[in-house]
């Protein structure tokens, strides 16, 4: 009985979008309004479940609301949540709801659109709720499919090529993650982490509502490789695989998968084309959702499992982050297409996440969590601004725009918030993240500067990281200012004199996004860091 009470809230959350998609698929395609409202109801339901989850959860404890069932072979369906999961789910479901709201612009094949959007949301939610690495990798790989169709069926003239590129590279990333998980799974058997499953009653007891602090760490070790036991997993036993390079190969594979998923420099090659061709709402959910998922993976999986590899290879990560940040900022500066500029902006943000992560500092972990929420929100705001602009100007070429500020001060104001958020302006969502990232660099530099350390560069590497991030930040801000100048300033072009005012729906979406931007910027402690404090302080090590 308990099994189907509170602990099934995560299962409900995972399967609600799939069930919703199935129901919508059965509706007649001509009933566009009904389809749209039904999909919105499902997304609202997901958000409501997330809010309920946030209320049920004890934010100062570990894994809760767990549920586990045998699937087939050695695989199990195993889900659970802690503060980090709940926070990521809230961000994701909020993003999905905004994407659904923004989908009112889709007039063709509406039913297919909403079905795919719901399936994509379900896959992302499933991956985040998974406590089992195989389930996690499975859901993560599955979201490529709806993403491929969403990018391939709607969007610009070259959308098919872009979608194919996305599918190819994302599949490569997903395969890398699968291989890493398979390798780990093989090792799990030897490490004795695949214990017999606990009884349902034990699981239900462990996931009681608001368990006492520090009491919610049951031995849920019957999963393929349970996230809750990552700390107990000694990856050094892994050394007997692949000529002693097992941990390194697994680490490399996971980082490759993350590079593709979050658009890190090197893995970003699908991002500019997809951004240029896709629709705003699909991009917001697919790219933003994958970014969230990647950051979640970084904190949940890479930190605890590959601590030794991180410590050994942090210089490599640092170089990757610095070079990637500067590279992406320069590329952003060269763009004349607004969407491509947004793509490189996101790549540079991913590089900043990597830089913060490479510090292995507490401030860096805080920065990553703040980046996750801030970047997805700002991405959605920038994408929506570009969509509104493209609808009225029939193009996003920055060099052919101008004078929009005087035509629509209202649009200019809200878009300005997006651009300023993108350059981490104080008061907006990304500023606290940048602050913590810079602090993490200096903190790491402080700890690395010991007289016993060998090598001048090694001793000062994080100082360089801090200055490089400042340079990257300045270049990125210059790119965004220049883009704003080309779009909004200057003389009004005759062809844009018909630039219409914002519609009520557009205005509504802007209000939601801009309010969220200010809320995250002004109250980061209450909205992000406070709820995640336990997990950021303890569970991620």
């Amino acid at each position, binding site marked *: 009985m308990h099994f189907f009470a509170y602990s099934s809230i995560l299962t409900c959350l995972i399967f609600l979008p799939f069930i919703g998609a199935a129901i919508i698929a059965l509706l007649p395609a001509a009933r566009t309004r009904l389809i749209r409202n039904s999909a919105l109801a499902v997304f609202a339901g997901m958000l409501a479940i997330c809010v309920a989850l946030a209320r049920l959860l004890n934010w100062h404890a570990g894994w809760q609301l767990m549920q586990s069932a045998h699937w087939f072979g050695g695989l199990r369906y195993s889900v659970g949540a802690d503060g980090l999961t709940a926070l990521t789910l809230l961000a994701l479901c909020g993003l999905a709801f905004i994407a659904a709201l923004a989908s009112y612009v889709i007039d063709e094949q509406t039913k297919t659109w909403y079905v795919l959007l719901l399936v994509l949301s379900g896959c992302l939610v499933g991956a985040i709720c998974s406590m089992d690495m195989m389930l996690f990798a499975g859901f993560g790989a599955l979201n490529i499919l709806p993403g491929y169709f969403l990018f391939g069926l709607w969007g610009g003239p070259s959308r098919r090529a872009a979608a194919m590129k996305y599918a190819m590279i994302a599949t490569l990333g997903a395969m890398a993650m699968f291989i890493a998980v398979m390798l780990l799974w093989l090792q799990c058997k030897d490490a004795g982490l695949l214990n017999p499953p606990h009884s349902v009653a034990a699981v239900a007891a462990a996931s009681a509502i608001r368990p006492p602090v520090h009491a919610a760490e049951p031995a849920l070790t019957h999963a393929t490789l349970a996230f809750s036991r990552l700390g107990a997993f000694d990856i050094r036993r892994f050394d007997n695989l692949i000529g002693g390079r097992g941990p390194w190969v697994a680490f490399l594979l996971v980082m490759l998968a993350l590079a593709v998923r979050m658009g890190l420099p090197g893995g970003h090659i699908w991002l500019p084309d997809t951004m240029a061709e896709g629709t705003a709402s699909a991009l917001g959910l697919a790219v933003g959702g994958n970014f969230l998922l990647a950051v979640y993976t970084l904190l949940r999986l890479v930190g605890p499992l590959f601590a030794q590899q991180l410590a050994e290879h942090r210089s490599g990560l640092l170089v990757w982050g610095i070079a990637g940040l500067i*590279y992406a900022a320069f*590329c952003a500066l060269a763009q004349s297409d607004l969407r491509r500029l947004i793509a490189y902006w996101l790549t540079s943000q991913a590089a900043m996440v990597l830089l913060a992560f490479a510090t292995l500092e507490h401030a860096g972990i805080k920065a990553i969590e703040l980046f996750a929420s801030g970047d997805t929100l700002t991405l959605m705001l920038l994408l929506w601004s570009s969509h509104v602009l493209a609808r009225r100007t029939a193009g996003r070429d920055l060099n052919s725009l101008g004078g929009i500020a005087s035509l629509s001060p209202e649009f200019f104001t809200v878009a300005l918030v997006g651009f300023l958020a993108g350059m981490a302006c104080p008061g907006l969502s990304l500023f606290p993240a940048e602050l913590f990232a*810079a602090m993490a660099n200096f903190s790491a530099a402080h700890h690395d500067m010991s007289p016993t350390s060998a090598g001048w560069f090694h001793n000062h590497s994080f100082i360089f990281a801090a200055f490089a991030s400042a340079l990257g930040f300045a270049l990125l*801000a210059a790119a965004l200012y220049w883009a704003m100048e080309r779009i909004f300033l200057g003389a009004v072009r005759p062809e844009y004199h018909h630039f219409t005012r914002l519609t009520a729906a557009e205005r509504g979406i802007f209000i939601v996004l801009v309010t969220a931007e200010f809320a995250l910027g002004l109250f980061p402690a209450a909205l992000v860091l406070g709820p995640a404090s336990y997990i950021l302080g303890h569970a991620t090590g």
Partner: protein
Amino acid sequence: MLHNSDIWLAIATLVPLLVVALVLTPLGRNPRHAAILAIGGYSTSLGLALWTVARKLLARGHMGQMGHLGAAKPILWTWLTIHTSAAAREYPNSLRMGVAVDSLTLVTFLLTALIALLVGIYVIGIVDDRRIRPGWFAWSNLFVFGMFSMVVAASVLELFAAGVLATVGIWGMAGAAWRGPCEASVRRMIPLPLLGDAFFLLGICLLLVHCNPAVLALPQVNGVAPIMASLGVALHASGVVGVLQSDGPSRLMGLGWWDWSGILMVLGIAGKAAQFPLHTWAVETTPAATPTGALTAGLLIAVAGPYLTARLIPLLNVDVRLLAAMAAAATLCFGALCSLTASDIKRGLMWLVSAQAGLSILFLVTGSYVAGLYESIYLALSGTCLFICAGTVLHCTGGESDFRRLGGLWRSLPVTAAASLLVCSAAMGLLLFGQPNMLVAGFENLRHIGAQIGEYGNLLYWLPLVACYLILFGLARWWWLIFGGAWRGTGAAPGGESAVRLFPLVLLALGSLMCGQPLLGISGLLAKSRPDLLFPPYTTGAHSVFAVQMANRLAWAWPMAIAVVVAIYSNGLGRAEKIRRLPGPNLIYRWLDAELYFYDLYGAVSRVIISGLAAVLGAADRWVIGWLVVSIGLIVRLISIVFATLDWRLTSVVASGGGLLSPAGGNFRAPVKWRWFFPLAIFFILAAAALLILLLAVSYT
């Protein structure tokens, strides 16, 4: 909370933000309505600030509550909790924001509100100009909100945030809200303040990592200075600053983290106040509307820069202060030199303002706290006044801004000419109503410090003094070429002074004349807010022999400047042109006319390095990597064709039972010459794969 009179100042700070919101509604669609809204907002802020002053006076009498910031009772809320390291957790580590008020806050707030209000009134006088857009008022209010926030800030982080807002406001005012060809200027203007902001943030982060975050609260900052004074570079935790370890290992290029933090923050100030090496952006705002220039010069450069310096000097150690002094002295010299050959009235003026801001910062960082702030107040009032004069001239002459086509306007614009002459005359604290004693004290301080530095230390005194003479010459030249002599333009000399435009002009001129008066008590108020500085003022500048000599030098400077200008420009630009053609002066003229080649240097960096790299990397990312992906796709496709063909051939063979060369039984019709290609290709691929596996196996064993 309402018992705390500072809350009224907090409300006054938020009023411009409310005006921004109102201007964006249909209420603000008409420029005149938007201007009235803005003036209403500024008046309210000014009124609330005056009310705060009155409450403080009534509360204790004799300004008892307006003293040192360390004694203030700030209104604070926790914004973030910082855990930089385990050791830092021993200290309270909340990063708090809020409002902290001392006498400097009140004086600067009143000054800012007054200048904003007077510029707003001036804009009413030109609001019928069709080039103005209502959005300008939103941007100007955002800028003023940023300035107010900076003034009432209770922490260093707030100073940074407010500075960023002010920069955004200037960007918007300069580019977004005024019809005119100023987009290119805006593009050139923004990178340097951005770079300054980035450095400032890094400096703050460095402080946060190494110190208790409480050190960022401005009331605590004053407490740092005595520690620095006594211990120099190496700091120790003593209740105020929680330093994690001594400065020893954390050195980069011979400098400790405290030095680096200070240098980065000084660069942040340089970005705001247009100081060397980030000094070239200010003149780029001059193609924008005159009120934009007036607010940039009068508030951002003249007030924000010195105010930030005044608040942050306790955090700067001796070496960094000397570095800041050198940067300010360099700006003073560069600005004074560049103004000598400027042919644009606003550009020349902006160089002069930037140079004088350098003088103010120079005094502040060398310990002449009151003199530095006095210079800042004078500069704010006089800079705004002169910009409004320039705006009036531009308005009357239909936008003519070249000195070579102006002159003799004192006849048609008598009040403007008189006001600007008085303001120029009051420069350097001269004339009857000024208070040169403070400046004399500043210079005396410079001489003492210079003497202590060593062999070339006296340059710290002589260079600024010579630069001040040049500034006076520049001001005299500026006035004479506009108002003196004869009209050099085409047609009759224009006229047309309106009461609305003259009102702020006259008030600002009177303000700049009177601000140094001891009767107003401003210097006393400023002195109350002085933190315990590392460089105490050496003299009061009142009675020493040097003070008398210095006062004489300054007193004679202005008549000398006037005399030289009249001698050169009394017959128009002819004599100046003759001097310019001489080989030596021509070389110097070219150097000065190119504004010391800083534009070329920064332009080269910007265009060649940044833009070039951006273009190359952008193209590489799009085309090279794009083609790489496409090539991989093609190879995959080729291999798939090979395998598919092979598969078809094999099944055909099995199905037909015939030889490999028989094409019968399928749709594939390969030419005869290609028939051996696929089996051969497959053979080579398999051989390569086998070789690869062999190599891998060997390497692993």
